[in-house]
């Protein structure tokens, strides 16, 4: 039997029972569409988290207090909670770890912030002039905190655009205005460029002040909540990580590295952990969707078995006029593959539309990758073969004499 004839036979057979074929296809459509949409949501979450981690700066190491490595993604949960890192530690890193390009000690707390008649609750980050370089941040208006501001403990602040919107209204120029952080008055000297971050923390919704000022007027002690260290290049990260660990162990007088009261994490570690979490999420979502695909496949098998029974006489006739077993099994196999293929194609489009809709209406970011589309296509064809094989085999093995007598 020629391929074109086979396809024509398939088309005629499937269009003979349009409603049944359509309903069977629907099962696959739903299955494939949900696989596409679910993995798009999972991968969207993954890329959001990854971009928010990488947009925080490149070649970064985070030194955070009071955590053991590998416990989980606790970068923000731990900050400020334990107090083991001090300003002196940061200074020591700056001084002794020569490979480090920038060292940015940070003291982050949330405070109630008031301006004229408005107030908000936001992150107040005490830091130094190194912060914008380390975290890929640019100043839109005015200037960032200078070394002199840190030395003189001046009460100046740089405001994030979201916080500006909350306190002064959109498009207002906040430079020169004064705000009160925890009842202490600060003068605004600059505003950062919107980064549009989401995920762990939003750099646009924050206020940046000199770390010395934060320690003196806000926190009242000399601890820092974390130290961000930027390496010159990716190659020197491991060395720097090693040097910082040794330095801080020595400074904190701890001999057993397992007992360390601080953690040095590099961006790759955080990325890997976040990826493993979102990866698990993606797998979970995809497997739920996969179950509906399986159900769709069983639907295909059900329809094909009904088909074979209904067309027993036709199969008998085809055998009587010279069809071989392979001709018959091919015909039925192509029918089921065609059903799943069609279902797969429609499902991919529907899934894509769903993923787009989810993003468009702002529920969450989604990302449809070619891998997923190809995989879905392959899986749908495979389902056609797997679930079509048994009915096709049954059809091909029918005894022509009995099949012709079948009522």
């Amino acid at each position, binding site marked *: 039997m020629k391929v074109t004839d086979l396809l024509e036979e398939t088309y005629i057979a499937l269009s003979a029972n349009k409603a049944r074929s359509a309903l069977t296809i629907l099962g696959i459509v739903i299955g494939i569409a949900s696989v596409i949409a679910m993995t798009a949501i999972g991968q969207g979450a993954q890329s959001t988290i990854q971009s928010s981690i990488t947009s925080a700066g490149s070649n970064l190491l985070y030194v955070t207090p009071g955590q053991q490595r590998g416990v989980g993604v606790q970068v923000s949960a731990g900050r400020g909670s334990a107090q083991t890192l001090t300003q002196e530690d940061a200074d020591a890193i700056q001084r002794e770890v020569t490979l480090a390009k920038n060292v940015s000690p940070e003291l982050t707390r949330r405070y109630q912030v008031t301006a004229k008649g408005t107030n908000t609750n936001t992150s107040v980050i005490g830091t130094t002039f190194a912060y914008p370089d380390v975290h890929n941040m640019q100043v839109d208006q005015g200037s960032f905190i200078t070394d002199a501001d840190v030395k003189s403990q001046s009460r100046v602040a740089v405001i994030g655009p979201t916080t500006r919107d909350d306190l002064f209204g959109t498009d207002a120029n906040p430079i020169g205005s004064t705000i009160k952080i925890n009842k202490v008055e600060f003068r605004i000297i600059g505003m950062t460029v919107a980064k549009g971050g989401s995920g762990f923390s939003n750099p646009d919704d924050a206020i940046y002040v000199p770390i010395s000022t934060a320690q003196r007027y806000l926190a009242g002690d000399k601890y820092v909540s974390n130290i961000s260290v930027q390496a010159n290049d990716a190659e020197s990260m491991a060395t720097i990580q090693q040097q910082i660990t040794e330095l801080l162990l020595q400074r904190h007088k701890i001999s057993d590295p397992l007992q360390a009261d601080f953690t040095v994490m590099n961006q790759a570690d955080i990325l890997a952990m976040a990826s493993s979490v979102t990866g698990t999420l993606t797998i979970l979502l995809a497997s739920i969707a996969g179950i509906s695909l399986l159900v769709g496949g069983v639907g295909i098998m059900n329809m094909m078995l009904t088909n074979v029974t209904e067309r027993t006489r036709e199969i008998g006739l085809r055998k009587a006029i010279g069809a071989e077993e392979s001709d018959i099994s091919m015909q039925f196999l192509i029918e089921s593959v065609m059903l799943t293929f069609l279902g797969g194609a429609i499902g991919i489009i529907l899934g894509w539309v769903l993923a787009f809709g989810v993003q468009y209406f702002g529920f969450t970011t989604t990302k449809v990758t070619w891998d997923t589309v190809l995989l879905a296509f392959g899986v749908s064809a495979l389902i056609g073969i797997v679930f079509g094989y048994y009915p096709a085999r049954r059809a091909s093995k029918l005894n*022509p004499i009995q099949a012709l007598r079948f009522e």
Partner: protein
Amino acid sequence: MIVLDKITKTYFNADEEIPVLKGISFTIKDGEYVAIMGPSGSGKSTLMHILGALDTPTNGSYLLDNQDVSKLSEKELAHIRKDKIGFVFQSFNLLPRSTVIRNVALPLIYSRVSKEERTERARQALLSTGLPEDRFSHLSNQLSGGQMQRVAIARALVTNPSLILADEPTGNLDTATGELVLDTFKQLNDKGHTIVLITHERDVAEHAARIIYIKDGSVLRDEAKKRS
């Protein structure tokens, strides 16, 4: 040319043997018109299945065009059916919702004949059965019984087989239409086609030039009639 030599067919049940054909021998030359006649249960259907390469005998040999068909595999039997045998069934067995032309051309798709040639050969086969040409593109289930059977005959003819095997071809038709179908067979025989007609009706068998009577799995009588 068909040569049957001591064909037996025995079905084996759990613990009993049921002999259906008990040593059947006869020869049918090319261009003959033979009726195989017998009451139901005589084994004529089993004989037809063996003649049609749908089944193989338990013992004995069946030479079709000098090829021994009695020991072939399922796949080889399919080839024999495709190239050498045309079936006409009592219940027509046309594909519903398909056109007359497509039904007739169906056997040719298994011979990998091109679509244009299939359509042309199907037309020729249909013309030789005398079906009106305006019916060729009708759906098969829009036809009358007699027309359906002529479509089925055309389908049997289209591969130009050595043997046309008709199993009670008039069984589902009234007498007048039955006569029409039998006329068609007669005309085909006149053009040189070998036809074997299986029936239990004397009137139908009388149309053939030779009648082989089967009873209890054996040949009872084999009589040639003078062509009228």
